[in-house]
């Protein structure tokens, strides 16, 4: 909250949000300004708080599964994967190979969809109108595959504890491969519009720098951490769902500014295509559900399982008391933790850069507030 110094004549307190298009949802930032310069920020969050962790304690393990889609609603598949893996860990079962391959395909497709929405809206914030139309056009193709697979475009509930909700549909492989072939040249197209664009470079280079040490201090993960030069990706560091079988790179940059984060995410989309192509080429035959009873009742215990979601490390800490309902589910949301670094990134910068930095953090308020 504003302290006494706010009354100093040279300082101005500016309220941004919660109804501001560039805050990507209901984020309110109280900015302390000296002219154009940012002296400090205070984030006010919680507008979308629904008490997801409390709901979990009052639902069975399977009933809670669809709720997690509503946290990071542009990457629902990742949320579901993390939750299913956590409960599977407690049950000590593993999804069968076929289910794992389809999980990887859908999760990577979701990573692309999430990054596309980020790119479009981020470019829009900076003042580039065109990319958002292209990005949403391609994202539509990805959402169509989700829709064909499970009937939903956003809140997919695609996975079940122990495997998959549905068998793949006829032409699934063909459609995914067609998407991959279509998509790679489109990434080049976006890059043509932006990568060497003078305004784009001018607005992003050197803005909102977060060094590797600062990232670790703030617990910042995902593309933000990799843009600062840390080659760390949970898909490589602690592989899950068979990611160790696929050949892909972890893109990194060095300075950790807004432009680097753009470069890293663009490369990640290309890598996601690579993973999908390999996975589609080798979907094993077999069952799609592991040995999980009708009633899910993990033994007393606890587990923390995390995955590399599009925004960073998404973790689930689940405590079981041996009953059919989780005793406690804690979601470790990447957006919430990354958002905390906003103050460090914008302090001393210009007020116009706050918009660029919020965009580059790629937060989803549904996940920040849960």
């Amino acid at each position, binding site marked *: *909250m504003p302290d006494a110094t706010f009354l100093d004549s040279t300082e101005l307190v500016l309220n941004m949000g919660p109804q501001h298009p560039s805050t990507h949802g209901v984020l309110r930032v109280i900015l302390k300004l000296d002219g154009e310069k940012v002296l400090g920020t205070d984030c006010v*969050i*919680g507008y979308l*708080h629904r*008490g997801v*962790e*409390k*709901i979990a*304690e*009052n639902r069975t393990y399977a009933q809670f599964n669809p709720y997690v889609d509503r946290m990071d609603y542009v990457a629902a598949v990742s949320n579901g994967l993390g939750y299913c893996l956590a409960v599977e*860990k*407690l*049950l*000590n*079962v593993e999804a069968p190979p076929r289910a794992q391959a389809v999980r990887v395909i859908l999760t990577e497709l979701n990573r692309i969809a999430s990054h596309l929405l980020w790119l479009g809206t981020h470019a829009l914030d900076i003042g580039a109108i065109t990319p958002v139309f292209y990005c949403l056009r391609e994202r539509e193709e990805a959402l169509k595959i989700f829709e064909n697979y499970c009937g939903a475009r956003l809140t997919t509930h695609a996975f079940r504890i122990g495997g998959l909700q549905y068998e793949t549909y006829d032409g699934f492989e063909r459609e995914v491969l067609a998407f991959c072939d279509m998509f790679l040249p489109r990434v080049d197209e976006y890059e043509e519009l932006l990568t060497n664009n003078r305004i784009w470079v001018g607005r992003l280079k050197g803005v909102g720098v977060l060094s590797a040490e600062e990232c*670790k*201090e*703030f*617990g910042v993960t995902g593309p933000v951490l990799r843009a600062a030069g*840390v080659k*760390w990706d949970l898909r490589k*560091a*602690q592989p899950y769902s068979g990611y160790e079988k696929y050949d892909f790179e972890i893109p990194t940059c060095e300075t950790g500014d807004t432009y680097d984060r753009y470069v890293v995410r663009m490369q990640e989309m290309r890598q996601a295509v690579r993973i999908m192509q390999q996975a589609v080429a080798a979907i094993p035959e077999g069952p799609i559900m592991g*040995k*999980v*009873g009708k*009633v899910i*009742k*993990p*033994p*007393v*215990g*606890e*587990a*923390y399982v*995390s995955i590399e979601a599009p925004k960073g*490390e998404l*973790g689930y*800490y689940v*405590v079981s008391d*041996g*009953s*059919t309902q989780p*005793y*406690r589910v*804690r979601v*470790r949301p990447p957006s*919430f*933790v990354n958002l*905390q670094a906003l103050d460090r990134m914008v302090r001393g910068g210009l007020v116009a850069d706050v918009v660029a930095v919020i965009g580059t953090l790629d937060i989803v308020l549904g996940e920040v*507030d*849960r």
Partner: protein
Amino acid sequence: MADEQKPGGSEAPGPQGASAPKPPAAAADAAKAAPPKPAAAHAPPKPPATMAAVPWDSDLARELKDRFGGGITEASTYLGQNFVVAKREAAIAVIEHLKLEADFDYLVDITAVDWPKRADRFDLVYILYSFARNERLRVKVSIPEGYRPETAVGVHLTANWLEREVFDMFGIEFDGHPDLRRILLPEEWQGYPLRKDYGILQQDQRWVQENLGIESGQ
């Protein structure tokens, strides 16, 4: 699932067999617990009532025990995940030691679990990760209601918001926290929603009526 329970079940009678009165007591407990749950009638033998964790044998666990002595009361592993239980006075020292001496330089998460029937009502859970070792470690601390644990902000900056959320949801006040305010709920909100005695439909009606101008949030 069944496979998982069997080893636990066969292990349990081993140590208990040594002292004669225990097995019947355990069986009686199981029988008592069975009736309220109809599903238990045809369920396999009841799984152990506590976590089937095994001692965590490693250099790090030994080093921590040497360094902190009684400050570390347990070092165990469950499902391949390691955790240590620390005395509440030692917790921050353990986390700082892990950061400075053992490369656990990334505080992933801080959270709490409410066990209202226990004397030490809350479990505080610190999840740590080491980039250098590619290893995770949980540090758990039991604290009674009203106890003010020391803040971890001095060791990891990320603890700031994480502790604010724990305060917001559980009412645990961290001693020395630079900015301990509610983070997700409004500042004037009464009650701590993630405590077990807070109902799923419960709300701060007065706040809802005063600020939203509606009778009830339900």
